[in-house]
């Protein structure tokens, strides 16, 4: 839980000092890929809280989803079909579901820790 959040912060710091410019033509595909990657990391956090984290699933999901989303968005643009909406709904929706699961997990952890403290005091 702490590690990926710390990782994102480190990445932001690196990006702060080593900024590269993405051509405007690609920035819309990049943002779709970003959403897919964000979803993967949130999913990874949830899985590691559930103790079900698998490296292979995570890596393939991270890159696979990002490239698939960007590729589909590009094809959609070419065919004049807004396929990128599918990516936004899928990953955006899952992002919220994952976040809700993480939140519940953390709240339960907090509760159980409190109970432990109470038990110790008794």
């Amino acid at each position, binding site marked *: 839980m*702490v*590690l*990926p*959040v*710390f*990782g*994102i*912060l*480190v*990445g*932001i*710091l*690196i*990006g*702060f000092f080593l*900024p*590269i*410019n*993405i051509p*405007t033509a690609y*920035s*819309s595909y*990049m*943002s779709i*890929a*970003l959403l897919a*990657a*964000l979803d*993967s*990391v949130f999913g*990874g956090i949830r899985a*590691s809280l559930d*103790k079900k*984290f*698998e*490296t292979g699933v*995570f*890596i393939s999901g*991270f890159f696979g989803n990002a490239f698939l989303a960007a590729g589909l968005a590009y094809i959609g643009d070419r065919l004049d079909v807004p396929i990128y909406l599918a990516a936004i709904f899928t990953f955006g929706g899952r992002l919220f579901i994952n976040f809700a699961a993480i939140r519940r997990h953390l709240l339960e952890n907090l509760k159980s820790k409190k109970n432990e403290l109470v038990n110790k005091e008794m």
Partner: protein
Amino acid sequence: MKFQKGQITFFILSVLLGYVIMVMLYSNPINMNQSTSLSTVKELVKKENDELEIKKDYLNKIRSLEKRIVFYQNYASGTSVNAKKIQEELEKTKVLVGLTDLVGPGVEIILNDRKKETLPNINENNPIEWYIVHDEDILKVINELLAAGAEAISINDMRIVSNTRIRCGGPTINVKNQSLAPPFIIHAIGNPDQLNNFLTNPSLDAQHQMSIYNYLTSYGIEFTIRKEENVKVPRFYGSMKTYYAKSIN
């Protein structure tokens, strides 16, 4: 702290995600109110294409109507010697006024704002206005061309005629009744060497010993002059009525 397997890859990919987020923040300006979104640009491009299509239709209409006029004129000129002379006179006048497409030796001038990558620090003492093409610059260039004996001049395919105004329109330059945006491509028919000389020779300027070419390029404005054998200058489209002026004779 316990290490689950694959935590390291998780960390590395998170770093990558954070980096990409930062890169996206940099490439998309944070102040979204002042920038134009991609969808707006697409919409505007489509609008422009539609308008250009309409313009093309109107031009075609003008051409077909004018063809009919020419047909009637030819018919009328065949009726008598005097009518024929009048028509010859009319054709000459059309050339002088700017109602015919012209071709001949001359120069092609491209004026463009300074490239964003080469801009120096922009601040109050060094405003961005120094590095863009202004209406005055174009007026000066056209003045030099006329001084050098240019016989026909056009800017971005807008023919310069006797009542053409060139005026600042904010981000654009208004020429006659159209707004033009950079790059400004000026075509002029005349003696190519003389046209080029008037634009670039600093000794012709008595006051500052600086030609318009020296002046504009010193600010980094793109200014290219190309001598050409066949410069095409399109005709003027529009109305040329006079409401107040009357001929004395």
